[in-house]
């Protein structure tokens, strides 16, 4: 082995220096990069960057007055907790504004940036939001409703959006009435857009609202069950879930058994034929004011049933249009059942006691409760031992010559008889008074 000569020593020395220099340069570069990355990352994430002005401590300081504070704990528990502020508030990006504070009024957050069908960030779209644009809350109606039009944040909230199963979520079933009522019972909005504010509030006293409020029965119908979620349409719109012909299908979602009975009965059959006059669920039960049939304020409480039915069955125009038997209400009211019910005796038969509730059928139908073959059973519900003879003869009794000659002639006879008797008596009284007068005058 020979020793390196002068030139070789120089090269080696330079080589070693180069390695050290490179190593140093790389370290410095790495440190610098890390520093830069660290600081720029701070500007994007929910770290000291945004909260230095929008945090709770900042709110106490004089210089940050007027800046809207953001509650960290709310954000931290919300469903968006892993997302950066600037992912939604895109125009607040630090780097975009050349290191200065972001402009005073940020533009509106566009939720559709992530919440669209087929998005890759895992943003849920539980109900089709494409329906929104055609719905009554859609962008198409913005001209009409202006700033009153609800946006995503009006129903879902802003920073306080919670996961669907969370009870704190504004769209949790138990909270939905409150969410909708915020606008639908707001006096300003209801006045401006002619919304019936008391209607929404009436829901809270209905059987559905009470079940929800008082016992937390979250399967009770709430606004979205009947009206839809993003596809809400005005009741007059034929595609609306609450347009009259669609109502039975809407109620069917929970009341399937009753729907089955209804659709087999005459009212339901007429609905299938497209008859616009036939009653649907809400015609008898009400809509936001629906109460249990055991509630004395219900439209189908025993003492109110005859009034509800007579809306159509005591209407001369409808009677003529559909050849319905006439004078149903007056003949019922004349009968003992009608009289007793008017005096509050709930045991007495009302319309539904004999005709049924949902599967009302004409008497010609062999399954009808008022078919002559079935009448003894129907009457027998209250009158045990009601035999065939019991149910013979007219039930709705009219005092006309052809339908009930006995009653007709008795009435006629008594009318005459009473009139004659009273007439005779009046004559007698007159004659008696006359004689007294004569006696009195003759005494003078």
């Amino acid at each position, binding site marked *: 082995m020979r020793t390196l000569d002068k030139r070789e020593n120089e090269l080696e020395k330079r080589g070693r220096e180069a390695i050290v220099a490179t190593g140093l340069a790389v370290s410095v570069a790495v440190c610098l990069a890390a520093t830069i990355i660290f600081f720029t990352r701070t500007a994007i994430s929910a770290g000291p960057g945004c909260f230095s002005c929008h945090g709770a401590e900042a709110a106490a300081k004089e210089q940050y007055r007027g800046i809207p504070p953001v509650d960290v704990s709310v954000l931290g528990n919300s469903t968006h907790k892993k997302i950066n502020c600037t992912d939604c508030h895109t125009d607040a990006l630090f780097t975009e504004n050349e290191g200065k504070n972001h402009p005073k009024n940020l533009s509106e957050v566009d939720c559709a940036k992530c919440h669209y069908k087929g998005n890759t960030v895992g943003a849920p779209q539980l109900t089709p939001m494409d329906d929104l644009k055609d719905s009554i809350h859609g962008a198409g109606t913005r001209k009409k409703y202006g700033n009153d039009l609800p946006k995503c944040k009006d129903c879902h909230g802003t920073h306080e959006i919670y996961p669907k199963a969370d009870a704190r979520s504004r769209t949790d079933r138990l909270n939905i009435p409150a969410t909708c009522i915020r606008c639908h019972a707001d006096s300003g909005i209801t006045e401006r857009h002619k919304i019936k504010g008391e209607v929404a509030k009436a829901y809270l006293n209905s059987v559905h609202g009470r079940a929800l409020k008082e016992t937390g029965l979250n399967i009770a119908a709430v606004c979205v069950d009947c009206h839809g979620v993003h596809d809400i349409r005005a009741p007059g719109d034929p595609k609306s879930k609450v347009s009259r012909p669609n109502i039975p299908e809407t109620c069917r979602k929970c009341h399937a058994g009753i729907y089955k009975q209804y659709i087999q009965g005459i009212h339901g059959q007429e609905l299938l034929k497209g008859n616009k006059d036939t009653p649907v669920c809400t015609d008898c039960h009400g809509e936001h004011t629906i109460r249990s049939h055991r509630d004395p304020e219900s439209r189908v409480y025993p003492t109110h049933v005859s009034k509800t039915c007579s809306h159509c069955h005591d209407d001369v125009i409808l009677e003529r249009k559909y050849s319905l038997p006439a004078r149903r209400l007056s003949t019922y009211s004349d009968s003992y059942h*009608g009289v007793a019910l008017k*005096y509050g*005796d709930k045991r007495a038969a009302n319309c539904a006691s004999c005709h049924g509730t949902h599967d009302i059928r004409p008497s010609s139908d062999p399954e009808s409760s008022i078919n002559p073959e079935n009448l003894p059973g129907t009457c027998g519900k209250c009158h045990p031992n*009601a035999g065939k003879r019991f149910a013979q003869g007219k039930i709705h009794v009219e005092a006309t010559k052809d339908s009930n000659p*006995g009653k007709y002639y008795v009435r006629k006879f*008594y009318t005459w008889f009473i009139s004659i*008797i*009273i007439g005779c*008596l009046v004559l007698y009284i007159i004659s008696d008074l006359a004689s007294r007068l004569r006696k009195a005058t003759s005494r003078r």
Partner: protein
Amino acid sequence: MTEMKEESAANKENHKYYLRFPLSYRVQHIILVLSFFTLIITGLPLLFPGSKFLRAIFIVPDIFVLRGVIHRIAAAALMLLGAFHVLFVIFSDQGNKDVRAIMPRWSDIGKGLRSILFNLGVTGDPPEYGRFRPIEKFQYIATAAAVAVMIGTGVIIWFPDLSMMLLPKWVMDVAITVHGLGAVLVFSTLILWHIYTVHFGSEDFPMSRVWLDGKISEEKMKKTHSLEHKNIREAEQQEKK
């Protein structure tokens, strides 16, 4: 009729009284009054179900049901009274005599017309009445008929299940109509005829006490039941002989 003498302290005259209605009559009549009154009060509401006034009374359904119970109790009382009365007129002497006297005769029509004409000043003489004036006979017959009809139809209505099992339904409808309109008839006849006759028609307005104490004074007898008065006088004189 028995005779009673009473001293009147005021006039020192002998006010002679006759016992027109013995106790049995008065008791029957009072029971009749009470039962009629109760039946009408508890029955008429059924004819006016739309009345707000009546519904204010029957404020709770139980009151309405109670009304029905009271009506049936009074009806039972009336039925017992009716049965008693029938037995009474058959088996008691007094009843026998009086029921014969109260039966209307053809002459009553004439008497009735004459009384009206007399009242109007057309004829000169007032007619003479026996124990029962035509108007009183009419009221008795009318009451008896009305009670019979009301009890008959009432029983049919009282047991609707049984009635409708045995009889055609139209019988039930007719029974209800007759019962209701019969009630109106009784009510108007009673109030107008009877109350007028005994309160305003009698000479001792406001009210003659004969239905309470059974006594009728001699002067009144002479005025209103002159024939009977004559018969009694003759009978007394016969006895004296």
